[in-house]
Protein backbone atom coordinates (compact mmCIF):
# COMPACT_ATOMS: atom_id res chain seq x y z
CA UNK A 1 0.00 0.00 0.00
CA UNK A 2 1.60 3.23 -1.14
CA UNK A 3 0.55 6.83 -1.19
CA UNK A 4 2.33 9.32 -3.44
CA UNK A 5 1.72 13.04 -3.39
CA UNK A 6 3.08 15.10 -6.27
CA UNK A 7 3.29 18.93 -6.33
CA UNK A 8 0.16 19.36 -4.22
CA UNK A 9 -1.14 22.89 -3.71
CA UNK A 10 -4.30 23.92 -1.92
CA UNK A 11 -5.86 27.19 -0.82
CA UNK A 12 -9.20 27.91 0.84
CA UNK A 13 -9.28 31.28 -0.92
CA UNK A 14 -7.17 32.50 -3.80
CA UNK A 15 -5.04 34.89 -1.72
CA UNK A 16 -2.97 32.43 0.33
CA UNK A 17 -1.80 28.89 -0.30
CA UNK A 18 -2.24 26.60 2.71
CA UNK A 19 -0.31 23.83 0.96
CA UNK A 20 2.38 24.91 -1.48
CA UNK A 21 3.86 22.38 -3.90
CA UNK A 22 3.99 19.44 -1.48
CA UNK A 23 5.54 16.18 -2.66
CA UNK A 24 5.60 13.17 -0.37
CA UNK A 25 5.83 9.40 -0.63
CA UNK A 26 4.80 7.09 2.17
CA UNK A 27 6.39 3.66 2.16
CA UNK A 28 4.77 0.58 3.66
CA UNK A 29 5.55 0.09 7.34
CA UNK A 30 7.00 3.58 7.76
CA UNK A 31 6.29 5.77 10.81
CA UNK A 32 6.33 9.35 9.57
CA UNK A 33 5.83 12.20 11.97
CA UNK A 34 4.83 15.70 10.90
CA UNK A 35 5.88 18.68 12.98
CA UNK A 36 4.66 22.18 12.30
CA UNK A 37 3.24 25.22 14.01
CA UNK A 38 -0.49 25.87 14.29
CA UNK A 39 -1.81 26.76 10.85
CA UNK A 40 1.18 25.19 9.02
CA UNK A 41 -1.21 23.08 6.90
CA UNK A 42 -1.02 19.68 8.64
CA UNK A 43 -4.77 19.14 8.90
CA UNK A 44 -5.32 20.47 5.36
CA UNK A 45 -2.73 17.97 4.09
CA UNK A 46 -4.53 15.16 5.92
CA UNK A 47 -7.95 16.23 4.64
CA UNK A 48 -6.56 16.26 1.09
CA UNK A 49 -5.09 12.78 1.58
CA UNK A 50 -8.46 11.51 2.84
CA UNK A 51 -10.27 12.97 -0.17
CA UNK A 52 -12.22 15.55 1.90
CA UNK A 53 -10.63 18.46 0.03
CA UNK A 54 -9.92 18.68 -3.68
CA UNK A 55 -6.51 20.25 -4.30
CA UNK A 56 -6.25 22.99 -6.93
CA UNK A 57 -2.94 21.61 -8.18
CA UNK A 58 -1.02 18.34 -8.03
CA UNK A 59 -1.99 14.71 -7.68
CA UNK A 60 -2.44 12.17 -4.91
CA UNK A 61 -1.96 8.56 -5.98
CA UNK A 62 -3.21 5.74 -3.78
CA UNK A 63 -1.81 2.42 -4.99
CA UNK A 64 -0.91 4.18 -8.26
CA UNK A 65 -4.53 5.28 -8.88
CA UNK A 66 -5.68 8.90 -8.47
CA UNK A 67 -7.37 9.38 -5.10
CA UNK A 68 -10.30 11.11 -6.86
CA UNK A 69 -11.15 7.83 -8.62
CA UNK A 70 -11.93 6.13 -5.27
CA UNK A 71 -15.34 6.16 -3.57
CA UNK A 72 -15.44 7.19 0.15
CA UNK A 73 -15.87 3.54 1.14
CA UNK A 74 -12.87 2.44 -0.94
CA UNK A 75 -10.68 5.16 0.60
CA UNK A 76 -11.82 4.03 4.06
CA UNK A 77 -10.67 0.49 3.27
CA UNK A 78 -7.15 1.82 2.61
CA UNK A 79 -6.73 4.89 4.83
CA UNK A 80 -7.99 5.29 8.41
CA UNK A 81 -8.12 8.59 10.24
CA UNK A 82 -7.97 9.30 13.95
CA UNK A 83 -8.69 12.84 15.15
CA UNK A 84 -7.46 14.47 18.33
CA UNK A 85 -9.30 13.82 21.58
CA UNK A 86 -12.87 15.06 21.50
CA UNK A 87 -16.16 14.16 23.13
CA UNK A 88 -19.15 12.71 21.29
CA UNK A 89 -22.61 14.19 21.60
CA UNK A 90 -24.02 10.68 21.57
CA UNK A 91 -22.48 8.26 24.00
CA UNK A 92 -21.98 4.92 22.24
CA UNK A 93 -20.28 1.96 23.92
CA UNK A 94 -16.62 1.35 23.11
CA UNK A 95 -17.69 -1.83 21.32
CA UNK A 96 -20.14 -0.01 19.04
CA UNK A 97 -17.63 2.79 18.41
CA UNK A 98 -15.05 0.25 17.27
CA UNK A 99 -17.73 -1.58 15.29
CA UNK A 100 -18.22 1.63 13.28
CA UNK A 101 -14.79 0.90 11.81
CA UNK A 102 -16.30 -2.05 9.95
CA UNK A 103 -18.71 0.25 8.07
CA UNK A 104 -16.47 0.24 4.99
CA UNK A 105 -16.52 -3.58 4.98
CA UNK A 106 -20.31 -3.95 4.72
CA UNK A 107 -22.94 -2.82 2.23
CA UNK A 108 -24.50 0.61 2.84
CA UNK A 109 -27.98 -0.75 3.54
CA UNK A 110 -26.94 -3.45 6.01
CA UNK A 111 -25.76 -3.54 9.61
CA UNK A 112 -22.65 -5.27 10.99
CA UNK A 113 -23.12 -8.99 11.49
CA UNK A 114 -21.48 -11.66 13.64
CA UNK A 115 -18.32 -11.69 11.49
CA UNK A 116 -17.71 -7.97 12.05
CA UNK A 117 -18.47 -8.29 15.77
CA UNK A 118 -15.99 -11.13 16.13
CA UNK A 119 -13.36 -9.06 14.34
CA UNK A 120 -13.97 -6.23 16.83
CA UNK A 121 -13.64 -8.63 19.78
CA UNK A 122 -10.34 -9.84 18.41
CA UNK A 123 -8.97 -6.29 17.88
CA UNK A 124 -10.02 -5.21 21.39
CA UNK A 125 -8.26 -8.27 22.82
CA UNK A 126 -5.08 -7.62 20.79
CA UNK A 127 -4.92 -4.04 22.06
CA UNK A 128 -5.61 -5.24 25.62
CA UNK A 129 -8.79 -3.16 26.00
CA UNK A 130 -11.48 -5.88 26.01
CA UNK A 131 -12.45 -4.75 29.51
CA UNK A 132 -13.61 -1.41 28.07
CA UNK A 133 -16.03 -2.95 25.55
CA UNK A 134 -19.18 -2.36 27.63
CA UNK A 135 -18.19 1.11 28.79
CA UNK A 136 -19.52 4.32 27.26
CA UNK A 137 -16.99 6.20 25.14
CA UNK A 138 -17.41 9.46 27.10
CA UNK A 139 -16.95 7.70 30.44
CA UNK A 140 -13.44 6.34 29.85
CA UNK A 141 -10.15 8.24 30.15
CA UNK A 142 -8.68 10.24 27.26
CA UNK A 143 -5.93 7.68 26.71
CA UNK A 144 -8.41 4.80 26.68
CA UNK A 145 -10.58 6.72 24.26
CA UNK A 146 -7.71 7.20 21.83
CA UNK A 147 -6.88 3.48 22.11
CA UNK A 148 -10.54 2.76 21.25
CA UNK A 149 -10.20 4.99 18.18
CA UNK A 150 -7.02 3.14 17.19
CA UNK A 151 -9.06 -0.07 17.53
CA UNK A 152 -11.72 1.50 15.29
CA UNK A 153 -9.05 2.33 12.70
CA UNK A 154 -7.81 -1.27 12.82
CA UNK A 155 -11.40 -2.49 12.31
CA UNK A 156 -11.37 -0.62 8.99
CA UNK A 157 -8.58 -3.02 7.90
CA UNK A 158 -6.89 0.01 6.31
CA UNK A 159 -3.11 -0.20 6.21
CA UNK A 160 -2.40 3.55 6.22
CA UNK A 161 -3.24 5.36 9.45
CA UNK A 162 -3.45 9.16 9.52
CA UNK A 163 -3.28 10.38 13.09
CA UNK A 164 -4.03 14.07 13.62
CA UNK A 165 -2.53 15.16 16.93
CA UNK A 166 -4.03 12.17 18.68
CA UNK A 167 -1.82 12.62 21.72
CA UNK A 168 -2.84 16.25 22.20
CA UNK A 169 -4.79 16.75 25.45
CA UNK A 170 -3.47 13.45 26.87
CA UNK A 171 -1.43 13.28 30.05
CA UNK A 172 2.23 12.22 29.70
CA UNK A 173 1.66 8.58 30.64
CA UNK A 174 -1.17 8.22 28.16
CA UNK A 175 0.88 9.92 25.43
CA UNK A 176 3.61 7.30 25.85
CA UNK A 177 1.05 4.48 25.99
CA UNK A 178 -0.63 5.60 22.74
CA UNK A 179 2.69 6.29 20.94
CA UNK A 180 4.17 2.92 21.81
CA UNK A 181 0.97 1.22 20.66
CA UNK A 182 1.22 3.01 17.30
CA UNK A 183 4.89 2.21 17.04
CA UNK A 184 4.13 -1.50 17.40
CA UNK A 185 1.65 -1.29 14.52
CA UNK A 186 4.41 -0.45 12.03
CA UNK A 187 5.90 -3.89 12.79
CA UNK A 188 2.62 -5.36 11.48
CA UNK A 189 2.98 -3.49 8.18
CA UNK A 190 0.89 -0.42 9.00
CA UNK A 191 2.05 2.90 7.57
CA UNK A 192 1.69 5.74 10.04
CA UNK A 193 1.43 9.45 9.34
CA UNK A 194 1.31 11.21 12.66
CA UNK A 195 1.14 14.93 13.38
CA UNK A 196 2.18 16.19 16.78
CA UNK A 197 3.21 19.29 18.69
CA UNK A 198 5.58 17.20 20.76
CA UNK A 199 8.97 17.02 18.95
CA UNK A 200 10.41 14.62 21.54
CA UNK A 201 7.72 12.03 20.81
CA UNK A 202 8.42 12.37 17.09
CA UNK A 203 12.19 12.08 17.62
CA UNK A 204 11.76 8.93 19.71
CA UNK A 205 9.24 6.96 17.67
CA UNK A 206 9.34 8.16 14.04
CA UNK A 207 11.38 6.61 11.23
CA UNK A 208 11.14 9.89 9.37
CA UNK A 209 10.23 13.42 10.39
CA UNK A 210 8.64 16.02 8.11
CA UNK A 211 8.72 19.67 8.99
CA UNK A 212 5.81 21.59 7.54
CA UNK A 213 6.36 25.32 7.50
CA UNK A 214 3.82 27.73 5.93
CA UNK A 215 2.48 25.03 3.63
CA UNK A 216 5.88 23.78 2.43
CA UNK A 217 7.89 20.75 3.51
CA UNK A 218 11.15 22.22 4.77
CA UNK A 219 12.70 18.94 5.97
CA UNK A 220 12.12 15.25 5.38
CA UNK A 221 14.63 12.84 6.90
CA UNK A 222 15.51 10.72 9.92
CA UNK A 223 15.34 11.97 13.51
CA UNK A 224 19.18 11.72 13.70
CA UNK A 225 19.58 14.09 10.77
CA UNK A 226 17.02 16.51 12.24
CA UNK A 227 18.78 16.45 15.62
CA UNK A 228 21.96 17.56 13.90
CA UNK A 229 20.34 20.74 12.56
CA UNK A 230 18.78 23.78 14.19
CA UNK A 231 15.67 23.54 12.01
CA UNK A 232 13.40 22.85 15.00
CA UNK A 233 14.55 26.13 16.55
CA UNK A 234 13.63 28.07 13.43
CA UNK A 235 10.35 26.14 12.99
CA UNK A 236 9.12 26.98 16.48
CA UNK A 237 10.96 30.35 16.57
CA UNK A 238 12.45 29.28 19.90
CA UNK A 239 16.10 28.53 20.59
CA UNK A 240 16.13 24.77 21.22
CA UNK A 241 18.97 22.49 22.25
CA UNK A 242 18.63 18.84 21.25
CA UNK A 243 20.46 16.39 23.48
CA UNK A 244 21.14 12.83 22.36
CA UNK A 245 21.02 10.17 25.04
CA UNK A 246 21.70 6.47 24.80
CA UNK A 247 19.25 4.45 26.87
CA UNK A 248 19.21 0.62 26.70
CA UNK A 249 21.37 0.84 23.55
CA UNK A 250 18.74 3.00 21.85
CA UNK A 251 19.17 6.62 20.80
CA UNK A 252 16.82 9.00 22.55
CA UNK A 253 16.54 12.77 22.15
CA UNK A 254 15.33 15.47 24.42
CA UNK A 255 14.55 19.04 23.40
CA UNK A 256 15.46 21.74 25.88
CA UNK A 257 14.85 25.47 25.38
CA UNK A 258 18.10 27.39 25.83
Amino acid at each position, binding site marked *: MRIEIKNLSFSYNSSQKVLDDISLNLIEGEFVSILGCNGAGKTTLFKSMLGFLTPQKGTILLDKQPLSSYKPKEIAQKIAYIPQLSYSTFDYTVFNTV*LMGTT*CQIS*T*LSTPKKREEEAVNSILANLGI*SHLAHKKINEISGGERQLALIARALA*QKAKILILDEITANLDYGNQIKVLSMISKLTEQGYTILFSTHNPEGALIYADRILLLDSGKISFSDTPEKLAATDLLSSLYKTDLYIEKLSIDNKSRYICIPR
Partner: protein
Amino acid sequence: MTNHNFRIKNNYLFPFILFFLLVFILSFAVGKYPISPINLVKILLSKVFPIERTWSKESETILFNIRMPRIIIAAFIGAALSVSGLIFQGIFQNPLVSPDILGTTSGAGFGAALGLFFGFSYFGITIISFLFGLLAVFLVMSIGRKLNNNQILSFVLAGIMISSLFSSSTSFLKLVADTDNTLPAITYYLMGSLTSIRQSDLPFVITLITLSIIPLLFLRWPLNVLTQGEDEARSLGVNTKLLRVIAIILATIMTSVTVAVGGVIGWVGLVIPHLIRMLLGCDYRKTLPATIFLGAGFLIFVDTLSRILTTYEVPIGILTSFIGAPFFLYLLLREGKKV
Protein backbone atom coordinates in the same frame (compact mmCIF):
# COMPACT_ATOMS: atom_id res chain seq x y z
CA MET B 1 -9.86 -13.73 24.17
CA THR B 2 -12.97 -12.28 25.79
CA ASN B 3 -16.00 -12.51 23.60
CA HIS B 4 -18.67 -9.96 24.17
CA ASN B 5 -22.14 -10.86 23.14
CA PHE B 6 -23.44 -7.68 21.62
CA ARG B 7 -25.94 -9.16 19.19
CA ILE B 8 -29.08 -7.13 19.38
CA LYS B 9 -31.95 -9.28 20.57
CA ASN B 10 -35.41 -8.35 19.42
CA ASN B 11 -36.93 -8.63 22.89
CA TYR B 12 -35.88 -5.02 23.65
CA LEU B 13 -38.74 -4.03 21.32
CA PHE B 14 -41.38 -6.09 23.11
CA PRO B 15 -42.42 -3.52 25.79
CA PHE B 16 -42.81 -0.82 23.14
CA ILE B 17 -44.95 -3.04 20.90
CA LEU B 18 -47.02 -4.05 23.93
CA PHE B 19 -47.56 -0.41 24.95
CA PHE B 20 -48.57 0.46 21.39
CA LEU B 21 -51.04 -2.43 21.07
CA LEU B 22 -52.58 -1.73 24.46
CA VAL B 23 -53.15 1.96 23.73
CA PHE B 24 -54.27 1.18 20.19
CA ILE B 25 -56.98 -1.26 21.29
CA LEU B 26 -58.15 0.75 24.33
CA SER B 27 -58.45 3.94 22.29
CA PHE B 28 -61.18 2.29 20.19
CA ALA B 29 -63.34 1.71 23.24
CA VAL B 30 -62.88 5.18 24.76
CA GLY B 31 -64.66 8.33 23.59
CA LYS B 32 -67.75 10.51 23.84
CA TYR B 33 -69.75 7.55 22.55
CA PRO B 34 -68.51 4.67 24.71
CA ILE B 35 -68.35 1.19 23.25
CA SER B 36 -68.08 -1.63 25.78
CA PRO B 37 -64.92 -3.77 25.50
CA ILE B 38 -67.03 -6.86 24.70
CA ASN B 39 -68.85 -5.07 21.89
CA LEU B 40 -65.54 -3.66 20.66
CA VAL B 41 -64.03 -7.13 20.35
CA LYS B 42 -67.22 -8.45 18.76
CA ILE B 43 -67.42 -5.62 16.22
CA LEU B 44 -63.78 -6.10 15.26
CA LEU B 45 -64.14 -9.89 15.03
CA SER B 46 -67.38 -9.58 13.05
CA LYS B 47 -65.31 -8.35 10.11
CA VAL B 48 -63.60 -11.74 9.98
CA PHE B 49 -66.04 -14.19 11.59
CA PRO B 50 -69.84 -14.36 11.36
CA ILE B 51 -70.97 -13.10 14.81
CA GLU B 52 -74.51 -12.34 15.91
CA ARG B 53 -75.07 -8.55 16.09
CA THR B 54 -75.52 -7.32 19.70
CA TRP B 55 -74.43 -3.75 19.04
CA SER B 56 -76.03 -0.76 17.41
CA LYS B 57 -75.40 0.35 13.87
CA GLU B 58 -74.02 3.67 15.25
CA SER B 59 -71.34 1.83 17.25
CA GLU B 60 -70.06 0.22 14.09
CA THR B 61 -70.18 3.46 12.10
CA ILE B 62 -68.37 5.40 14.82
CA LEU B 63 -65.77 2.69 15.19
CA PHE B 64 -64.90 2.21 11.55
CA ASN B 65 -65.69 5.58 9.97
CA ILE B 66 -64.66 8.02 12.69
CA ARG B 67 -62.45 6.42 15.33
CA MET B 68 -60.43 4.02 13.23
CA PRO B 69 -59.09 6.54 10.65
CA ARG B 70 -58.31 8.98 13.45
CA ILE B 71 -56.47 6.40 15.58
CA ILE B 72 -54.51 5.04 12.63
CA ILE B 73 -53.52 8.54 11.55
CA ALA B 74 -52.59 9.48 15.13
CA ALA B 75 -50.32 6.42 15.18
CA PHE B 76 -48.64 7.37 11.90
CA ILE B 77 -48.26 11.04 12.89
CA GLY B 78 -46.78 10.06 16.26
CA ALA B 79 -44.32 7.68 14.62
CA ALA B 80 -43.43 10.21 11.90
CA LEU B 81 -42.79 13.13 14.29
CA SER B 82 -40.76 10.95 16.66
CA VAL B 83 -38.65 9.39 13.91
CA SER B 84 -38.07 12.83 12.31
CA GLY B 85 -36.84 14.14 15.66
CA LEU B 86 -34.58 11.15 16.17
CA ILE B 87 -33.09 11.58 12.68
CA PHE B 88 -32.59 15.36 12.90
CA GLN B 89 -30.96 15.06 16.34
CA GLY B 90 -28.40 12.62 14.94
CA ILE B 91 -27.72 14.60 11.76
CA PHE B 92 -27.23 17.85 13.65
CA GLN B 93 -25.43 16.11 16.53
CA ASN B 94 -27.69 17.89 18.93
CA PRO B 95 -30.11 15.99 21.17
CA LEU B 96 -32.25 19.11 21.66
CA VAL B 97 -33.20 19.54 18.01
CA SER B 98 -36.84 19.04 17.00
CA PRO B 99 -38.33 18.10 13.60
CA ASP B 100 -39.09 21.75 12.79
CA ILE B 101 -35.41 22.76 12.95
CA LEU B 102 -35.34 23.38 9.19
CA GLY B 103 -38.55 25.40 9.08
CA THR B 104 -40.80 22.56 7.90
CA THR B 105 -43.51 23.24 10.46
CA SER B 106 -43.61 26.99 9.83
CA GLY B 107 -43.63 26.43 6.05
CA ALA B 108 -46.40 23.83 6.19
CA GLY B 109 -48.31 25.94 8.73
CA PHE B 110 -48.14 28.94 6.40
CA GLY B 111 -49.30 26.76 3.47
CA ALA B 112 -52.33 25.62 5.45
CA ALA B 113 -53.12 29.20 6.55
CA LEU B 114 -52.89 30.28 2.90
CA GLY B 115 -55.26 27.47 1.90
CA LEU B 116 -57.75 28.46 4.60
CA PHE B 117 -57.41 32.13 3.66
CA PHE B 118 -58.33 31.45 0.04
CA GLY B 119 -61.08 29.01 1.04
CA PHE B 120 -59.47 25.88 -0.43
CA SER B 121 -61.10 22.51 0.06
CA TYR B 122 -59.79 20.26 2.84
CA PHE B 123 -57.80 18.25 0.29
CA GLY B 124 -56.39 21.47 -1.24
CA ILE B 125 -55.27 22.68 2.20
CA THR B 126 -53.50 19.39 2.87
CA ILE B 127 -51.62 19.53 -0.43
CA ILE B 128 -50.61 23.21 -0.25
CA SER B 129 -49.50 22.77 3.35
CA PHE B 130 -47.36 19.76 2.38
CA LEU B 131 -45.81 21.64 -0.56
CA PHE B 132 -44.93 24.69 1.55
CA GLY B 133 -43.31 22.38 4.13
CA LEU B 134 -41.07 21.00 1.41
CA LEU B 135 -40.44 24.49 -0.01
CA ALA B 136 -39.23 25.71 3.39
CA VAL B 137 -36.63 22.95 3.62
CA PHE B 138 -35.61 23.41 -0.01
CA LEU B 139 -34.96 27.11 0.73
CA VAL B 140 -33.08 26.29 3.93
CA MET B 141 -30.83 23.78 2.19
CA SER B 142 -30.17 26.09 -0.78
CA ILE B 143 -29.24 28.99 1.50
CA GLY B 144 -27.32 26.76 3.92
CA ARG B 145 -25.16 25.40 1.11
CA LYS B 146 -24.26 28.90 -0.07
CA LEU B 147 -22.94 29.92 3.35
CA ASN B 148 -19.29 29.06 3.75
CA ASN B 149 -19.42 28.28 7.44
CA ASN B 150 -19.75 24.94 9.12
CA GLN B 151 -22.46 23.15 7.12
CA ILE B 152 -24.51 22.09 10.14
CA LEU B 153 -24.48 25.58 11.63
CA SER B 154 -25.40 27.06 8.24
CA PHE B 155 -28.47 24.83 8.00
CA VAL B 156 -29.56 25.72 11.52
CA LEU B 157 -29.14 29.47 10.91
CA ALA B 158 -30.95 29.29 7.57
CA GLY B 159 -33.68 27.24 9.32
CA ILE B 160 -34.20 29.92 11.96
CA MET B 161 -34.39 32.59 9.27
CA ILE B 162 -36.84 30.77 6.97
CA SER B 163 -38.92 29.63 9.92
CA SER B 164 -39.24 33.19 11.14
CA LEU B 165 -40.15 34.40 7.64
CA PHE B 166 -42.99 31.88 7.31
CA SER B 167 -44.23 32.52 10.87
CA SER B 168 -44.39 36.26 10.13
CA SER B 169 -46.21 35.54 6.87
CA THR B 170 -48.75 33.44 8.78
CA SER B 171 -49.19 36.26 11.30
CA PHE B 172 -49.80 38.66 8.41
CA LEU B 173 -52.46 36.35 6.98
CA LYS B 174 -54.12 36.20 10.39
CA LEU B 175 -54.04 39.99 10.56
CA VAL B 176 -55.87 40.45 7.28
CA ALA B 177 -58.13 37.38 7.60
CA ASP B 178 -61.87 37.58 8.20
CA THR B 179 -62.17 37.62 11.99
CA ASP B 180 -65.42 35.66 12.06
CA ASN B 181 -64.45 32.56 10.11
CA THR B 182 -60.95 32.45 8.63
CA LEU B 183 -58.99 33.76 11.62
CA PRO B 184 -60.45 31.21 14.08
CA ALA B 185 -59.96 28.45 11.48
CA ILE B 186 -56.26 29.33 11.02
CA THR B 187 -55.70 29.68 14.77
CA TYR B 188 -57.41 26.38 15.53
CA TYR B 189 -55.53 24.61 12.74
CA LEU B 190 -52.16 25.82 14.03
CA MET B 191 -52.97 24.49 17.50
CA GLY B 192 -52.90 21.00 16.03
CA SER B 193 -55.92 18.78 15.98
CA LEU B 194 -57.04 15.47 14.55
CA THR B 195 -60.79 16.25 14.69
CA SER B 196 -61.17 16.75 10.95
CA ILE B 197 -59.36 13.54 9.95
CA ARG B 198 -61.26 11.59 7.31
CA GLN B 199 -61.00 8.11 5.91
CA SER B 200 -59.80 9.61 2.62
CA ASP B 201 -56.65 10.91 4.40
CA LEU B 202 -55.50 7.37 5.15
CA PRO B 203 -53.82 6.49 1.81
CA PHE B 204 -51.94 9.84 1.66
CA VAL B 205 -50.65 9.63 5.23
CA ILE B 206 -49.91 5.90 5.33
CA THR B 207 -48.14 5.82 1.95
CA LEU B 208 -45.87 8.82 2.46
CA ILE B 209 -44.92 8.03 6.03
CA THR B 210 -44.31 4.33 5.37
CA LEU B 211 -42.24 5.11 2.28
CA SER B 212 -40.15 7.54 4.35
CA ILE B 213 -39.57 5.26 7.33
CA ILE B 214 -38.58 2.12 5.40
CA PRO B 215 -35.41 3.58 3.78
CA LEU B 216 -34.42 5.04 7.17
CA LEU B 217 -34.69 1.59 8.74
CA PHE B 218 -32.23 0.32 6.14
CA LEU B 219 -29.90 3.26 6.79
CA ARG B 220 -29.83 2.96 10.58
CA TRP B 221 -26.20 1.80 10.76
CA PRO B 222 -24.72 4.61 8.61
CA LEU B 223 -26.92 7.02 10.62
CA ASN B 224 -25.04 5.83 13.72
CA VAL B 225 -21.74 6.62 12.02
CA LEU B 226 -23.00 10.06 10.94
CA THR B 227 -23.38 11.07 14.60
CA GLN B 228 -19.57 10.92 14.87
CA GLY B 229 -19.29 14.15 12.89
CA GLU B 230 -18.55 14.99 9.27
CA ASP B 231 -14.83 14.15 9.08
CA GLU B 232 -14.96 10.96 11.11
CA ALA B 233 -18.05 9.62 9.32
CA ARG B 234 -16.47 10.30 5.92
CA SER B 235 -13.20 8.69 6.96
CA LEU B 236 -15.20 5.62 8.01
CA GLY B 237 -16.54 5.31 4.47
CA VAL B 238 -19.94 7.01 4.70
CA ASN B 239 -21.04 9.26 1.85
CA THR B 240 -22.04 11.92 4.37
CA LYS B 241 -23.48 14.49 1.97
CA LEU B 242 -25.75 11.98 0.24
CA LEU B 243 -26.85 10.34 3.49
CA ARG B 244 -27.58 13.70 5.12
CA VAL B 245 -29.64 14.89 2.13
CA ILE B 246 -31.63 11.63 1.95
CA ALA B 247 -32.32 11.64 5.70
CA ILE B 248 -33.32 15.33 5.70
CA ILE B 249 -35.66 14.86 2.73
CA LEU B 250 -37.36 11.81 4.28
CA ALA B 251 -37.71 13.46 7.71
CA THR B 252 -39.09 16.59 6.03
CA ILE B 253 -41.66 14.65 4.02
CA MET B 254 -42.86 13.02 7.24
CA THR B 255 -43.04 16.31 9.17
CA SER B 256 -44.87 18.04 6.29
CA VAL B 257 -47.43 15.25 6.11
CA THR B 258 -48.13 15.56 9.83
CA VAL B 259 -48.64 19.34 9.65
CA ALA B 260 -50.74 19.00 6.51
CA VAL B 261 -53.28 16.68 8.15
CA GLY B 262 -52.94 17.45 11.86
CA GLY B 263 -51.61 20.99 12.17
CA VAL B 264 -48.72 21.88 14.44
CA ILE B 265 -48.19 19.16 17.04
CA GLY B 266 -45.12 20.16 19.00
CA TRP B 267 -42.79 18.41 21.44
CA VAL B 268 -43.43 14.83 20.29
CA GLY B 269 -40.29 14.84 18.12
CA LEU B 270 -38.24 16.02 21.08
CA VAL B 271 -39.73 14.05 23.95
CA ILE B 272 -40.03 10.57 22.42
CA PRO B 273 -36.45 10.29 21.03
CA HIS B 274 -35.13 11.48 24.40
CA LEU B 275 -37.14 8.96 26.30
CA ILE B 276 -35.96 6.22 23.94
CA ARG B 277 -32.28 7.20 24.33
CA MET B 278 -32.70 7.24 28.11
CA LEU B 279 -34.09 3.71 27.98
CA LEU B 280 -32.06 2.10 25.19
CA GLY B 281 -28.95 4.22 24.54
CA CYS B 282 -28.24 5.90 21.23
CA ASP B 283 -27.76 3.00 18.77
CA TYR B 284 -30.12 3.64 15.84
CA ARG B 285 -30.40 -0.11 15.28
CA LYS B 286 -32.47 -0.20 18.48
CA THR B 287 -33.78 3.34 18.81
CA LEU B 288 -35.36 3.66 15.38
CA PRO B 289 -37.76 0.67 15.63
CA ALA B 290 -38.55 1.46 19.28
CA THR B 291 -39.24 5.14 18.45
CA ILE B 292 -41.81 4.11 15.84
CA PHE B 293 -43.87 2.15 18.40
CA LEU B 294 -43.47 4.54 21.33
CA GLY B 295 -44.20 7.60 19.16
CA ALA B 296 -47.27 5.97 17.64
CA GLY B 297 -48.59 4.79 21.03
CA PHE B 298 -47.87 8.15 22.67
CA LEU B 299 -49.82 10.17 20.12
CA ILE B 300 -52.80 7.79 20.19
CA PHE B 301 -52.76 8.15 23.98
CA VAL B 302 -52.65 11.96 23.87
CA ASP B 303 -55.30 12.09 21.13
CA THR B 304 -57.57 9.85 23.19
CA LEU B 305 -57.08 12.21 26.14
CA SER B 306 -57.93 15.16 23.91
CA ARG B 307 -61.17 13.38 22.94
CA ILE B 308 -62.35 12.60 26.48
CA LEU B 309 -60.76 15.16 28.79
CA THR B 310 -63.42 17.86 28.54
CA THR B 311 -66.77 18.33 26.87
CA TYR B 312 -64.99 20.24 24.10
CA GLU B 313 -62.07 18.63 22.33
CA VAL B 314 -58.75 20.03 23.50
CA PRO B 315 -56.44 20.56 20.48
CA ILE B 316 -53.81 17.84 20.61
CA GLY B 317 -50.99 20.37 20.08
CA ILE B 318 -51.90 22.00 23.39
CA LEU B 319 -51.81 18.66 25.22
CA THR B 320 -48.47 17.59 23.72
CA SER B 321 -47.04 20.94 24.87
CA PHE B 322 -48.47 20.46 28.37
CA ILE B 323 -46.70 17.10 28.56
CA GLY B 324 -43.61 18.03 26.52
CA ALA B 325 -42.60 21.29 28.19
CA PRO B 326 -42.30 19.90 31.75
CA PHE B 327 -40.45 16.87 30.38
CA PHE B 328 -38.02 19.18 28.59
CA LEU B 329 -37.45 21.03 31.84
CA TYR B 330 -36.79 17.71 33.56
CA LEU B 331 -34.20 16.90 30.87
CA LEU B 332 -32.45 20.22 31.35
CA LEU B 333 -32.31 19.66 35.10
CA ARG B 334 -31.01 16.14 34.55
CA GLU B 335 -28.31 17.36 32.16
CA GLY B 336 -27.43 20.12 34.62
CA LYS B 337 -26.87 17.57 37.38
CA LYS B 338 -24.48 15.61 35.12
CA VAL B 339 -22.35 18.71 34.54
